[in-house]
C-alpha cells in the first residue's frame, strides 16, 4: 500500500528549537528493565506520582513504583507478548518494544483502577504454568510453541470467564502497550506528531479513494 507520508516537514532539530523545553526533545527508546523479583501475591507497595508530577521527564517502568514480576513471570509475559503481537514482515513483536515491562508497570501500579487487573493477570499467569504442568511440561514457557498457541486459541474463545478473561485483559494491555510505542503507532498507520510548516489537508490520493474534492478555501 502506498504510504502518503511525504508532507514537507520541519526538520526535527528546528522544531525542537521552537519548543523551549529542552527536556521535551529527549526521546526514549525501548530499554531493558530487569524486573524486581517479589512475592507476586503481595499488594503493591509504591506510591502514585501525585497531582503535580514533572510532565516533561521521560519515565520508564520501575522509575515510579517497584515492579512485580519474578524472572519466571517476566519470561512468561514475554512469550505471551509475542503470541499476541508477533513480528511480521511489516513490524516487530511486542516484546521487542518492551511491552512486557509495561504490563509489569501496569499491574504494579498503586492506583486502585489497576488493582483488579493485577489480581487477574497474576492469577492467569499461575494458571498458564499449571496448565503447562498438566500437559507434562515444567511450566508454560517450557512448552512447544504449538502447544502454547493452542492454549491461547482456546482462551480466546471465552473472553468473559476465567481464564479467558485473563487472556482478554492480557491482550488489552499488550495491544494497548504496543500501539502506544512509536513502532506500534507507525504500524497502525499513524504518521503524525511531526512538526510541519503547513497543513494542507489529506493527500489527493486519499481524497480520490473517497470520492472527495479538495477543499477550495
Amino acid at each position, binding site marked *: *500500500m502506498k504510504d*502518503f*507520508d511525504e*508532507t514537507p516537514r*520541519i526538520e526535527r532539530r528546528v522544531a525542537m528549537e*521552537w*519548543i*523551549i*523545553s529542552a527536556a*521535551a526533545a529527549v526521546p*526514549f527508546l525501548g530499554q531493558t528493565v530487569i524486573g524486581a523479583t517479589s512475592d507476586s501475591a503481595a499488594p503493591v507497595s509504591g506510591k*502514585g*506520582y501525585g*497531582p*503535580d*508530577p514533572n*510532565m*516533561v521527564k*521521560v*519515565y520508564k517502568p520501575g522509575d515510579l513504583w517497584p515492579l512485580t514480576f519474578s524472572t519466571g513471570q517476566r519470561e512468561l509475559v514475554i512469550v505471551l507478548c509475542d*503470541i499476541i*503481537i508477533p513480528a511480521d514482515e511489516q513490524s516487530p513483536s511486542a516484546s521487542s*518494544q518492551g511491552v512486557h515491562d*509495561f504490563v509489569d*508497570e*501496569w499491574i504494579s*501500579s498503586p*492506583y486502585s*483502577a*489497576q488493582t483488579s487487573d493485577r489480581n487477574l493477570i497474576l492469577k492467569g499467569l499461575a494458571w498458564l504454568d499449571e496448565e503447562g504442568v498438566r500437559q507434562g511440561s515444567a511450566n508454560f514457557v517450557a512448552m512447544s510453541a504449538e502447544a502454547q498457541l493452542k492454549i*491461547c486459541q482456546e*482462551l*480466546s474463545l*471465552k*473472553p468473559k470467564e476465567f481464564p*479467558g478473561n485473563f*487472556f482478554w485483559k492480557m*491482550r488489552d494491555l499488550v495491544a*494497548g*502497550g504496543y*500501539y*502506544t*510505542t512509536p513502532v506500534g*503507532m507507525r*504500524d*497502525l*498507520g*499513524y*504518521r*503524525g*506528531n511531526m*512538526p*510541519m510548516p503547513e*497543513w*494542507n489537508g489529506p493527500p489527493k490520493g*486519499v481524497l480520490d479513494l*473517497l470520492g*472527495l474534492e*479538495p477543499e477550495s*478555501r
Partner: protein
Amino acid sequence: MPVISPKEVQPDYDVVIVGSGAGGGQMAYTLTMNGAKVLVMEAGRIFDPARETAMMHTPDMAPLRAMPTPDKQYGFYDSSVDSGWEIPGEPYTNASKEEKRQFFWWRQRMLGGRTNHWGRVSLRNGPYDFKTKSRQGIGFDWPISYDDLHLYYDKVEMLVGIFGSNEGVENVPHSSPGVLLPPPKMRAGELLTKKFAKKIGIDVVPVHRAILTKQQDADRLPAILHPGNAKAQKILAENMRSRAKCFFATDCHRGCSIGAAYDSATVHLRPALKTGNLDILPNAMVREVTLNKEGKAKGLSYIDKVDGADHHVSAKVVVLAASSQESVRILLNSKSSLFPDGLANSSGKVGKYITDSVSSSFSAQIPALENLPPHNEDGTVGQQAYVPWWLCKEHTAGRLDFSGGYKFIVGSGRRMPKMSSVRGFDRLAGRDGTGFGTDLKEDARRFYGSTVGFGAQGAMAANDDCFSELDPEVKDKWGIPVLRFHWKWSDDELKQIAHQQESMASIFETMGARISRQPETGNPLKVIKDGGKIIHEVGGAIMGDNPKNSVTDQWSRTWDVPNLVLSDGAPFPNTADKNPTLTIMALAWRAADHVLDELKKGNV
C-alpha cells in the same frame, strides 16, 4: 512588578483580581495595559507552559501510557496540575443522592486556570442567545444585546488569535473582516461527513479555535487594539512576535510551549507583567471579600497555602474571576451584618441559575475510511469542523418540541493512538472472542482511524432546580465552607437530547456507518452528560436589569457593592449553544473598560 509572596503585597492596588484564567487574565490585561495597578491572586502555583508542557512525548514516555489516574484525571500529559473533579481536602457536595441529579465540578488550581487544557473552541454567542426569555419564553434575557459585545468579540479574537470562517449561518455572528485567522483544511473523515450531511440539509463548517494557523499581524493589530497607547502597542507587538504559529502536531490539551494555542499566562499575563503594573500572588486561597464601613469592598482575606497563615489584601476594586462556582462560594462565604446571607445577595440570587451545555455524543465506524493509506491527519490536533445549529427557522416557527438549539463538533482522524485505540476492533471484525496474533495486527491496520464521533452541546435556559449553596456542615481543609449543588435536567433539555441523538444518527445513516447502538431517544437521561461534565458551567450570579432578580448589572458589577465585579462565567443568565470562554473574555474586556472609567472618574 512580578510574581510575589504575601510579604511583598503592596498597600495601594487599584484592582485585585481573584483567578488567572480566561476572565481574570483578560481583566488583568486590559486594566494593566491602560495603567491600572493590579494584583492577580491565584489559588494554585505558578505554571509556565513554555517549560512544563510535554508536547511531543509519546504515551510510552509516561507512567501507565499516560492514562488517567486519580492524580491526573485527564491523563498524564493533560496540562493540568493540582486539578481535578476531586481534590484531596477540597470537597464539594450534592444535595441529591440520585445518580442523574449529580453535578460534577472541575477545579483547575494553577496559573492560567482552565485555559491551560481546554479544547480552544471559541464561538461567539449569537443575537438570539442574549434574548432567551423573549424568544423561548423561559429563563432570562441578558441586559445587553449582541451589538453591545460585537466589537469586544472582535478585539478578543484579534488579541487571542482565533481561526475560523464566516459562514452566514443564522444566529452565528460574523467576525469583522481581517479578524479571523484561516481555518485549517478538514480531514478526510470531516470532508466525508460534510458531503453526506449536506444530502440531508445539514452543513458542516470550520469550527473556531484559539490557535494561530498563521502568525498574528504584529504590525497592524496592536494599533487597532490600543489606539493612542504607544506603550501597550509595543508590548503587545512584542508578545505577538514571540508566539509561533501552529506546527500542526500535538494535542492542545497538553498545553502549548510555542504559544500557538492561547492560554492566559502566555497571551494575557505575560504582556500584563511587561507593563510593570501587575503583581501575581500564587498559592493564595481566598476566604472572603471584606467590607469597609460604607459597605464597599475593602479587599480580600486569604490563606497562604505555603504556610497556612491568614493574610489580607486591599484594593479600590475587587474582581472575582475564580470560575463561576468558586466566585459564588466566595460571595456566599463573605457574610457580614450588612449581608447576613452572603455578599451582594440582597436579591437572594447568589448561587441560583447555574446552566451548562446540554450534551450527548454518538460515534460510529465508517467502512469507507477503512484501510486508507497511512497519512498525517494531526492538523490542528482536535476539533476542526462542526455543525452550527441549523434549525433556527423551525424554532421561530414553533415546530420543535424543545426550546434550545445545539451544535455538534465532528471528531475524526488518524489520531495519536492511546491504550483504548484498538479495543473495539474485535466487534468490528465480527469476532466473538479475543483477537490476537496476525489477525489482531491486520484488524488494527484496517480499522485504525476509521471512526467518526459527534459531540453535541446545546443551550440551557436558567431554571429553579439547578443551583449551589453553602453546605451547612462540610468545610475544606482550611475550614472554609464548601458548596452543595442541586441539579435536575428538565424535560425540555431531555427532548433536546433525543433530537441530538436522532440527528447525529441520521447523518451516520447516510454515510453507511456501523453504529454500535441505536440513538437513545426513548430515555435521553441515559446518554445526557452529567451536569458539569462538559466543564461549561456558568451562572450563579447572573446579570440583569433589575437588582431584585439579578446579582450584577450589565457591567458585571454587583448591584449591592459598586466596587465588586465578577469576571468569569458567573454573570451568564444562560448557556448558549456556543462554548462560554470567548464570551467570558469579551465580557471581561467590557467590564474592565467600565472599571477603568470609574477609576478615572474617581467613583471607586
